[in-house]
């Protein structure tokens, strides 16, 4: 009987150790996913994919006007969605870049600011401080989730038909420009570009 009890206790200790090890491993998989996520204007994961039309959400701008993304496509206009937060320093630094690009591309493109959190007052103060009154500014958690905005600043480019061309984390002017480059080249992200390149190399090797 004693031998059985001892063996039982020993086994429990081992099973606990093993299950904690399994837990730690699964946790590390999660952490690795976050770390490996490529830097740059890369698609992190999920949400609307390039080539798809984003879900039609009824949005309200900060000044209380109803809007949808589909309305832009109906008028044959593209949209650059720029996700930001008043507390994000990089977003602040990129504001002049995106507004300049929007001016350069104004023949076919409208700029829309979006945020998925924070209080209304914060956003109103931010718009006043940064003089963004000329652009629609939407606060919507649902929109952020639809595009799976994981890290800020984040941008998504919709073409004149309302189809998502490219989206991703943008940290520099080059990253924002890469979205437009994607439209020109017909690739949706650096991830896709890299895997296409790898395939080409395999074929030629």
């Amino acid at each position: 009987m004693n031998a059985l009890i001892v063996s039982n206790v020993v086994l429990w200790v081992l099973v606990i150790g093993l299950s904690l090890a399994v837990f730690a491993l699964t946790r590390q998989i999660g952490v690795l996913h976050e770390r490996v996520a490529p830097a740059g204007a890369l698609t992190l994961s999920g949400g609307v994919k390039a080539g798809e039309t984003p879900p039609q959400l009824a949005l309200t701008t900060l000044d209380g006007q109803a809007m949808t993304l589909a309305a832009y496509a109906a008028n044959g206009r593209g949209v650059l969605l720029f996700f930001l937060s008043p507390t994000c320093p990089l977003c602040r630094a990129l504001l002049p870049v995106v507004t300049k690009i929007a001016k350069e591309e104004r023949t076919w493109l409208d700029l829309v600011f979006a945020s998925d959190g924070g209080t209304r007052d914060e956003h109103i103060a931010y718009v006043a401080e940064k003089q963004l009154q000329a652009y629609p500014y939407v606060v919507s958690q649902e929109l952020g989730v639809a595009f799976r905005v994981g890290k800020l600043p984040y941008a998504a480019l919709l073409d004149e038909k309302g189809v998502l061309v490219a989206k991703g984390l943008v940290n520099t002017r080059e990253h924002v420009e890469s979205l437009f480059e994607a439209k020109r080249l017909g690739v949706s992200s650096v991830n896709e570009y890299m895997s296409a390149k790898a395939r080409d190399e395999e074929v030629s090797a």
Partner: protein
Amino acid sequence: MSVDPVIAAILQFGLGWLFLASGVQKLRRMEEFRGIVAMYRLLPQRFVTTAAWFVAGVEVAVGLAVVLDQRAGFIAAAVVLAAYAAAMGINLARGRRFIDCGCGGTRQPLSIGLVVRNVLLSLIAVAGLLPVASRAIGWVDVVSMVAGLVVVGALYAATNQLLAARARLEEWV
């Protein structure tokens, strides 16, 4: 058919802890949870705040009832878990898989794996209604119970992490 007291205790405390932990987390992050309830799009917008508070309150109440070994607690637990499975199933069928499941722990989109998980949990709650066999309880049983709870908790958390990791892998470009 009756259940051994050790297994019954693991089931009872495991289920009770699950409900208490998730209810308290929802109460502490009510603003976020409100957004999640809204995104499920099962209720008119004006009921969302009430529903979010109600769901979180029910979870805490069910958790307490289960820990205190009330039959009603197990029935309610099974119903709540099945309702979550149904809510996720409805949104999956609508193609709204991108919404946050709101199932605690890591953020993850809806998946069939989560529906299966909730159906299994619901069946486990039903199993809590089975009569418990009576026998003398020794210290070995206490060891088994405590160790069993630790293992069940770790494996449940690992399952959730794996489901979240799988969702991310599927979305990898």
